[in-house]
């Protein structure tokens, strides 16, 4: 058998495949999206089925400010990526820190909301079906935000130390993709929980 023929075929056409990081992240996003979907379904299915305790209408107020913060962080992270892409490390640090700040405002908003719900309204995960589905859905999202914030902070530290060069732009893109996904999920959660469900 002439193995050489197999391995030196003259295929001169450029052979470019998508990057591993992006494809992997897209796959993960599909998987995560279905996890969120199940929690959303449970939330909607149990709307108004609680036998006791508070209802969404009694206790939820629409978190407009923090939502605006979170959604605008999608823009800042995008700007950070293109700064990295153009090799402008300083600029990237600024956009990254802006993203982290916006995200932190959002998560503080959630923390305050939960604090009030628990100590003022007495709504916990055990209270009723609303508490169960609300805390798990919003909590699942918050977990994703916190994880994203950690990763973004690491990226920020790297950029401060000058490690965020153009070679890293692919990785930054993967991270930004995740962050856009977290924002997109919030749009759904916001609509289902705070607008339609109330």
């Amino acid at each position: 058998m002439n193995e050489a023929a197999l391995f030196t075929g003259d295929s001169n056409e450029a052979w470019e495949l998508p990057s591993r990081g992006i494809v992997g992240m897209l796959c993960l996003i599909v998987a995560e999206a279905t996890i969120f979907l199940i929690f959303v379904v449970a939330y909607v299915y149990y709307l108004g089925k609680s036998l006791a305790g508070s209802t969404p209408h009694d206790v939820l107020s629409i978190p407009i400010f923090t939502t605006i913060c979170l959604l605008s962080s999608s823009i800042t992270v995008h700007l950070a990526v293109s700064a990295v892409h153009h090799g402008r490390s300083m600029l990237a640090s600024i956009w990254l820190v802006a993203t982290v700040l916006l995200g932190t405002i959002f998560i503080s908003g959630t923390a305050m909301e939960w604090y009030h719900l628990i100590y003022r309204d007495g709504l916990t995960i055990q209270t009723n079906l609303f508490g169960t589905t609300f805390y798990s859905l919003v909590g699942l999202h918050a977990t994703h935000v916190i994880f994203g914030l950690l990763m973004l902070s690491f990226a920020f530290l790297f950029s401060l130390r000058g490690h965020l060069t153009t070679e890293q732009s692919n990785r930054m893109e993967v991270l930004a993709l995740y962050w856009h996904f977290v924002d997109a999920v919030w749009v759904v959660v916001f609509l289902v929980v705070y607008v339609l469900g109330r």
Partner: protein
Amino acid sequence: MDGTLVEAEEIALRNSALQVLHNWVTTVDHKKIGLMYIGSSLLFLVIAGIEALVMRIQLAIPNNTFVSPQAFNRLFTMHGTTMVFFVGMSILFGFGNYLIPLMIGARDMAFPRLNAFSFWCTFFGGVLLYFSYVGGNGLSGAGSAPDVGWWAYAPLTARPFSPGHSTDYWTLAVLLSGVSSIGSAVNIVTTVVSMRCPGMTLGRMPLLVWLYTVMSMMAFVTVSPLTAAQIMLMLDRYVGSHFFDTQAGGSAVLWMHFFWIFGHPEVYILIMPAFAFANEIIPVFSRKAIFGYPAMVAASVGIGFVSLSVWAHHMFTVGMSAGANTFFVLATLTVAIPTGIKIFNWLATLWGGKIHFTTPMLFAIGFLFQFLLAGLTGVMVGAAPFDWQLSGSYFVVAHFHYVLVGAILFMLFAAFYYWYPKMTGRMANEALGKWHFWLFLIGFHVTFDFMHIPGILGMPRRIYTYEAERGWMVWNLIVSSGALIQAVATLIFVWNLIWSYFKGPLAGPDPWDAWTLEWSTSSPPPEYNFAITPVVESRRPLWDLKHPEDSDSYYE
């Protein structure tokens, strides 16, 4: 003098054994991880097989007291859970891990460390599941092994009905297996999308790679819901939420939906790789290219989609609306179209071919025949009125084992014999292989053909014993003896694997005269797979090399 020498040798030996162990535990090489997956699932196959045998011994005669009712509940739960999550899923990802990079001319999977993580995750999941036998009141009281069925219906899993930790073991083990499956699936899709060697266009990928890709994509959208449902169940059990708590207005039917949204496509996830193996093995031993490659790809994608929308055929007896029942019956029966296409294409591949009846081919032919029969009983239980009669009876158990054993396990055996030379460098023993095939075939049909009958006579599943007057005894005795024959055949198989590893004749790179890329490497392949990245120009790269006068690349 002599003593110290022996001692030194011993130490050297021990060190090298440690070294080998260390190499395996820390490896990120896709072939070693693939083999570890396969090894661990073989181990679990034997354990779950023993559980099946014990159940069949218990059911062989009426009023048997071989095991207690409680132990029986544990047996069928552990058997089902192990078979699906720790045998089926592991073995499939095992073969996938081993073969996919070789078949697409890559050096490794896209994320080697994620790959190792996935394996250890599922392995510890399985260990945890069995560790439950020593928890609680220990082994003789059978510990706190799960006893809620592999479907774990609410509210059986709620604290009041399932005190202690049995359900916690179950849900943690399944969660670990789910995380691992999602990781592996992400890895497979990414590898296929971004690691193919030059010239390996989507239209030239081996069908096995196509089917694994479809299967992995199904895993994202079905295993993740299961993971979500496990998280909910854990919240219910640990922090007192009410997802499936009927006392607080929660719904048991919601769990059923969540479970079967995963559970039904899961059987297709398990059978996709069986199709994949058939797609490689049947053409090679018919000495013909597969018939209708594009139709095969389309049918697989079609099956993937259809299987996502039929889950509630497991819930006809729950009392859904007539509209829902009708929808799910129609959706279920639609799957006959793409599967029909597949069967026709396999037959067309065999047609007029020079068929070589090697052991892998025998298993593949058994698969074709049994898969067809399983499809027929599938159509029966897929029709709601029929299902109302038979749901929860042994007819259903017979039907799904026809698929799980008659199709999936048969194709797994075929895959073992087919790729054994590649993985070990030695041929498996053909004579033992044929003994294995014929005995297993007989045992399978004695068990599962006859199991339909007590089902029709009204024998419910999950009962631990029955009275003599019911008239089920003869059938059960036959069924149980068939299970014994299968056990003997499986022993021959295991013996063959071990014996051939040491004594089998050397295989050489391409013992079957096959045509996909993995056969262009030495057997077993070197650590880096390919010294030079291959370039392919057709669907059968090795065929082109061996038959330049009839190269596929002329036809494309």
